[in-house]
């Protein structure tokens, strides 16, 4: 009895195993792959979409490179340009400024040439127009065609420069600089 039951169970398991192998074989067969093969339109559409995306990305990258180059060029031009800078910036502090005011212009001419330059026959000439925001001190120059002027801000001007510098630094930091 037990022997027969065991035999039957074993036979059932073998049948189930054979059946499962047959099913797995059907599902893995080339016929199954053919029946469920991707249509050619799927290949074409996917390839086309990827190509479009790649073209779009290339255009975007080219645009980004161009924009970066333009920005670098603009910054370089700004640094190299001999034009006077905005007051309050670092460059502005280093660059001689001429403040023009229609009222009561002040003119200074060669107030104190260096004794050493006098001995070399170099005539130092400087001319200023001031509105009272700066104090201008002419300095000696090795080239007779060049005048050098040292500018000092008055108290009011210096306070304004500092305020502008602080604002500039704050906004630069916010921009991620």
């Amino acid at each position, binding site marked *: 009895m037990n022997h027969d039951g065991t035999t039957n169970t074993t036979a059932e398991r073998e049948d*189930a195993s054979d059946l499962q192998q047959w*099913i797995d074989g*059907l*599902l893995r067969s080339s016929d199954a792959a053919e*029946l469920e093969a*991707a*249509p050619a*339109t799927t290949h074409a559409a*996917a390839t086309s*979409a990827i190509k479009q995306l790649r073209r779009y990305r290339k255009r975007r990258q080219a645009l980004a490179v161009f924009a970066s180059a333009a920005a670098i060029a603009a910054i370089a031009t700004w640094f190299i340009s001999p034009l006077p800078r905005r007051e309050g910036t670092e460059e502005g502090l280093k660059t001689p400024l001429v403040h023009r005011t229609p009222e009561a212009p002040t003119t200074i001419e060669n107030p104190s040439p260096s004794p050493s330059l006098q001995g070399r026959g170099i005539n130092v000439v400087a001319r200023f127009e001031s509105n009272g925001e700066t104090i201008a001190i002419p300095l000696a120059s090795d080239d007779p065609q060049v005048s050098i002027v040292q500018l000092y801000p008055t108290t009011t001007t210096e306070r304004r420069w500092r305020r502008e510098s602080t604002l500039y630094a704050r906004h630069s930091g916010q921009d991620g600089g």
Partner: protein
Amino acid sequence: MEELVAAHADAVYRYALRITRSRQQAEDLTQETLLRGWQRRGKLREPAAVRVWLLRIATNLHRDGLRAARGDVQLVAEATSPSFGGGVEGRMEQRECVARALAALDELPQRQRQVMHLVTIEQLSQETAAEVLEISVEAVKASLSLGRRAMREKLKDIYDDVYGTRRD
């Protein structure tokens, strides 16, 4: 890029067909999967595992319901259902058996269908299938066991007919 599409489009499509049971949705899901795969190809840690990676993307896209809004409900079983008129032999008989097996597979519940496809058709290990579906290996084993049993029950008559006929 073309290599990616050519090499894996069929596998992705078959899997998409299995989980959507609609050719139209399977095509959409395949295109979406390949496109997403290409966009995120930088995140692929193991290039050798690109097929598994794409199948996972397809699973997630389907799960997110990106294809759910479409109303196409044409079942693969309808498109491929065999006509068992009897008397067919050889290759035709084989193709009909295949079609019947695929139809039976598509009748399984979603999870069992996915697991059966990944393990049986894609021949992934149970661990990899679990990774694709983001479920435990135990859940994969359970679904596989249930799916196989259901498939055997559905196809036993055909199996007996085929082998009974051949034995005669």
